[in-house]
């Protein structure tokens, strides 16, 4: 060991000692009472065994799903978070996340139709491109981001107009997909290249508000899903 290494290790040890000396702060006495009061009104969200088992079976077949977290039980706040290792996700007719899926030919867009919007943003070193395409009632929102850190992308839309159908990405990844009424959010480290497909049978504008957050900064935009 060189002299410099010794100094480095001594310093490391000194910092460790200083940290260990900081000790613990006692939590507020009422904390437990508050938690218990809050949970008395609710029960743990039951897991739909068949669904979970189905996902686990998918996971056994191929690395598809890391974890499934049914979120808050309240209807308005209902959201599901999926940690997806590969493949994509499917939504039910009400736009709620149903679970992960392996990508299939039918999930890959064929005729993407007409491009209705194409925007580029930069936020804290993250370069982001947002695109929207429409083919009849089929709307596709593409998000491509290049970043060295974590990127969070949130899409907000009128749930009465746009019904999420599928979520796909172009390669294996590990990210989190969250879904709520009129909201889709993905969180991932590094590059992102994903596509959300919506069904839109309504008339008139159906814009999608987009927020991209990276390294404490945020950029917002609106994607037009109808030709100008």
């Amino acid at each position, binding site marked *: 060991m060189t002299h410099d290494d010794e100094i480095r290790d001594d310093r490391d040890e000194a*910092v460790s000692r200083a*940290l260990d*000396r900081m000790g613990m*702060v006692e*939590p507020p006495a009422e904390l437990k009472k508050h938690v218990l009061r809050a*949970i008395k009104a*609710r029960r743990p969200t039951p897991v739909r065994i068949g669904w979970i088992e189905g996902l686990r079976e998918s996971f056994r077949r191929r690395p598809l799903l890391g974890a499934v977290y049914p979120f808050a039980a309240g209807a308005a706040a209902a959201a599901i978070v999926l940690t997806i290792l590969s493949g994509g996700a499917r939504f039910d007719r009400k736009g709620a996340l149903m679970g992960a899926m392996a990508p299939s030919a039918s999930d890959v867009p064929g005729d993407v139709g007409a491009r209705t919007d194409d925007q580029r943003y930069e936020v804290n070193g993250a370069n982001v491109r947002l695109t929207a395409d429409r083919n009849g009632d089929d709307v596709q929102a593409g998000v491509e981001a290049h970043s060295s850190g974590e990127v969070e992308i949130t899409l907000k839309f009128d749930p009465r107009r746009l019904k999420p159908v599928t979520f796909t990405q172009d390669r294996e990844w590990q990210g989190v997909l969250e879904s709520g009424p009129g909201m889709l959010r993905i969180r991932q480290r590094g590059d992102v290249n994903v596509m959300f497909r919506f069904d839109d049978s309504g008339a008139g504008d159906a814009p999608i508000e987009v927020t991209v957050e990276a390294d*404490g900064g945020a950029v917002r935009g609106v994607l037009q899903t109808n030709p100008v």
Partner: protein
Amino acid sequence: MVREDEEELVARSLEGDTKAYGKLIDVHQRVLFNLALRMVNDLEDAKDLTQIVFIKAYERLATFERGRKFFSWIYRIMINESLNLIASRRPAEPLDEEMEALEMGPDRITESNEVTGIIQEALTELSPDYRQVIVLRHFAQLSHQEMSELLEVPEKTVKSRLFTARRILGEILTKRGVSLA
């Protein structure tokens, strides 16, 4: 508490036994609160985060897999919630005065307490990745292996991240005039 006991408490909690969940709170609230406090550097936020984490964990209890360590599972939720809060804040927020007062005591400011305040402030200058390894190691007292499982990175990465985090922290403290001898 051994893993089997915790699994039993989780099972009873799932049946609606809030006393069982209360016992899990008793066991983990101190460490979770300190994890939150050292991550977010604000007493009120730490209290809110700890409550939110226990409530979310309760709601997600059905997804907790038997055989896993409960603390590892709930610490993970805390780390994610803390990171979300940090990300939503503006960078380099000042040290929370209430916490500073609490750490320094109402009547006297000792040298060691002053150092504690400086270290806490210095912690907030570390990136969240570095901050989390410091708090998991030094405030949750997790082993490198436990941290590796929780953070889902190799043990080697944990050690290297921890070493770098302490090196940066040491540099910050030296600049602030704290003697590490």
